[in-house]
C-alpha cells in the first residue's frame, strides 16, 4: 500500500514539474487570435473602426491583427485565405461589397471561423454569425428631414454616392430620397459616385459645380466626400452659399459643423459597433451561439443645434 502511495506521489510530482518546466521554458500558452478585416484604411472613420475593434479584442485577452482590404474584393479574398490558414479564432469583418464578400465569409464559416460583420452588410443571413450595422436608412431619413428644413422646399441640389456595390450607399440614398423626393420643388440636378473618397468627392463636386452653378446643397453619402465637396466649394468661393450634408460622424466633420462649415451629418458610433462586435466574438469563443443575425445600431442627427453633445466618434 505504501509503495502505491509513493508511486502516486512520484507521478503527481513529475506532472507538476513538467508543467512548471513547460511554463518557464516556453512561457504562457499562446493567446487565441482575432482578425480585424477592414474595407479600407484610407479613410479615418474606418481606421477608428479597426483600431477600436483591435483594442477591445486585446482588452479581452486576444492577439488581434488588422487586415486592410483596400476596397478590393480580391485583396479581401487573399486576406481571408491568409486568416483561415493562420488559425484565427474569429473575424471582425467590414466588407468591401455586400454581395461580392459573401463567398469569403462562407469560406471562413466552412473552416469553422465565425465572422462578425461590422458596419457593412452582406446580403446573406446564413453566412456571418452576426452583423452589427448602422441603421443607415433611418439616419438618412432624419438627414432628409433636416435637409428640407434648412435648404427649403425648392431649389437644385446634387448627391454624391458612395461605392455603388455597397448596401450602405443604397440605404443612405434611399432614406434621404424617401423624404426629399416628396417635395417636387427640390430638384436633384446631379447624382454621381465618389466612392466614399475625399479626393474623388472634391473632383466630382468641381465638375458638378461647373455644370450646375445654381445648386443650393450637396448631400454626400459619407463624411469624407462631404469634406471633399466642402473643399471644392471653398476653392470657388461658394462655401457660404451651398450647404453640405455628410454621413458618418467623423471628427473633422463634427468640428466643421460646430464651425458652421458643414450643415449636418449622421453619427454612426463606430466605436460602439467595433467594441460590441469584439465582445460578440469573445462570447462566441466562450461558447455562446444564439446571436441575432442583424443588430441595427441607431444613427443620430448631428447639427449646429446639438453638435456640442458629440465628438470623438460618438456622444460625449
Amino acid at each position, binding site marked *: 500500500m505504501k509503495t502505491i502511495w509513493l508511486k502516486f506521489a512520484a507521478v503527481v510530482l513529475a506532472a507538476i514539474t513538467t508543467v512548471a518546466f513547460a511554463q518557464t521554458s516556453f512561457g504562457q500558452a499562446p493567446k487565441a487570435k482575432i482578425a480585424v478585416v477592414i474595407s479600407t484604411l484610407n479613410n479615418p472613420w474606418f481606421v477608428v473602426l479597426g483600431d477600436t475593434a483591435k483594442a477591445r479584442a486585446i482588452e479581452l485577452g486576444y492577439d488581434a491583427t488588422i487586415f486592410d482590404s483596400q476596397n478590393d474584393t480580391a485583396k479581401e479574398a487573399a486576406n481571408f485565405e491568409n486568416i483561415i490558414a493562420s488559425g484565427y479564432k474569429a473575424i471582425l469583418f467590414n466588407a468591401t461589397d*455586400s454581395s461580392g464578400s459573401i463567398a469569403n465569409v462562407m469560406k471562413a464559416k466552412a473552416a469553422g471561423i465565425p465572422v462578425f460583420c461590422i458596419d457593412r*452588410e452582406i*446580403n*446573406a*443571413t446564413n453566412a456571418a454569425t452576426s452583423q*452589427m*450595422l448602422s*441603421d*443607415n*436608412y*433611418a439616419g438618412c*431619413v*432624419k438627414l*432628409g*428631414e433636416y435637409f428640407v428644413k434648412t435648404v427649403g422646399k425648392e431649389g437644385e441640389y446634387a448627391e454624391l454616392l458612395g461605392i455603388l456595390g455597397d*448596401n450602405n450607399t*443604397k*440605404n443612405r440614398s*434611399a*432614406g434621404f430620397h*424617401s*423624404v426629399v423626393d*416628396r417635395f417636387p420643388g427640390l430638384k436633384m440636378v446631379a447624382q454621381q459616385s465618389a466612392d466614399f473618397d475625399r479626393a474623388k468627392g472634391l473632383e466630382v463636386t468641381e465638375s458638378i459645380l461647373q455644370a450646375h452653378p445654381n445648386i443650393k446643397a450637396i448631400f454626400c453619402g459619407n463624411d469624407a466626400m462631404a469634406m471633399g465637396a466642402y473643399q471644392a466649394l471653398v476653392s470657388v468661393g461658394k462655401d457660404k452659399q451651398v450647404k453640405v450634408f455628410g454621413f458618418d460622424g467623423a471628427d473633422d466633420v463634427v468640428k466643421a459643423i460646430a464651425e458652421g462649415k458643414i450643415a449636418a451629418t449622421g453619427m454612426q*458610433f463606430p466605436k*460602439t459597433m467595433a467594441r*460590441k462586435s469584439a465582445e460578440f466574438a469573445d462570447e462566441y469563443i466562450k461558447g455562446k451561439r444564439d446571436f*441575432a*443575425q*442583424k*443588430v*441595427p*445600431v*441607431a444613427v*443620430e442627427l448631428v447639427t449646429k443645434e446639438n453638435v456640442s453633445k458629440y465628438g470623438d466618434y460618438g456622444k460625449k
Partner: protein
Amino acid sequence: MRVVRWIIALAIAAGVCWLFPLFHVVPLQAVKAEKAAGRFNATQFAETFWAKQLVPALDKTVKADVLLAEIQADPAAAKKKYSHSVGFSDTYFYFLSGTGRVVSVSDDEISLAITPGSTNAEVTLLAGLIFGDAVRDGTGLLNPSAYPNSQDFNDISAALDHLVETRVLPRLHQQAKIGAQISFAGCAEVDDEANDLMPLKVIPIQTTTP
C-alpha cells in the same frame, strides 16, 4: 477533298454551337419581368402585414391614459414597462391606443387631450407626410434578421408609411374637428425625451369616431 473537310469542320462547329450556344437572345421585357418577379415586393408585403398582423395586434397596445400617467410619474419606469426598441439605440417606440378630444388641427398634426378635463395636447397624431420606421419597428412584429438585404426591410417602412398616408390620414382629416372625440391606435417614436414625450407624437394606424 479539301472542300469536303471544310464542310465537315463547319458542320461540326455548327453542331457544337447549336448544342452549346455562345449567347442567347432574350427580349428585354422578359429580362425585366424576370428580375421584378425575383425581387422582394414591399408593397404587397405591407398590404398583407397590415391586414394579417398589424390590425390584429392593435388589441395588444398600451392604453394612452395609462401610459401618459406612468410617463408623468416615472418616464424611465414607463419606458422599461411599455417601450420597444431595435438593436442598440436610444430611440424607442410605444405602441398605444386611446381616445381623446381634438384640441387643435393643422394640415400636419391633430392634437388630442386624453386626460378627462385636460385642455392640453397630450397626444399629437401626425397627419402630414409620414417618414421613418415607427410603424415598422414600433410594434415589434418585424425582425430585421429575417431579411438578407436590408434594402427590402427599409422598403417595408416606406410602403407602410404610404399605407398610413393613403388609408388612415384622409379619414382622420375628415374626423378632426375641434372638440370631436377620436379613438386612435398607432406608434410613437421617442428620439428626444425632452420633446417627444409630451405630447406623444403618434403615427396613426387606425382612427375612429364614437
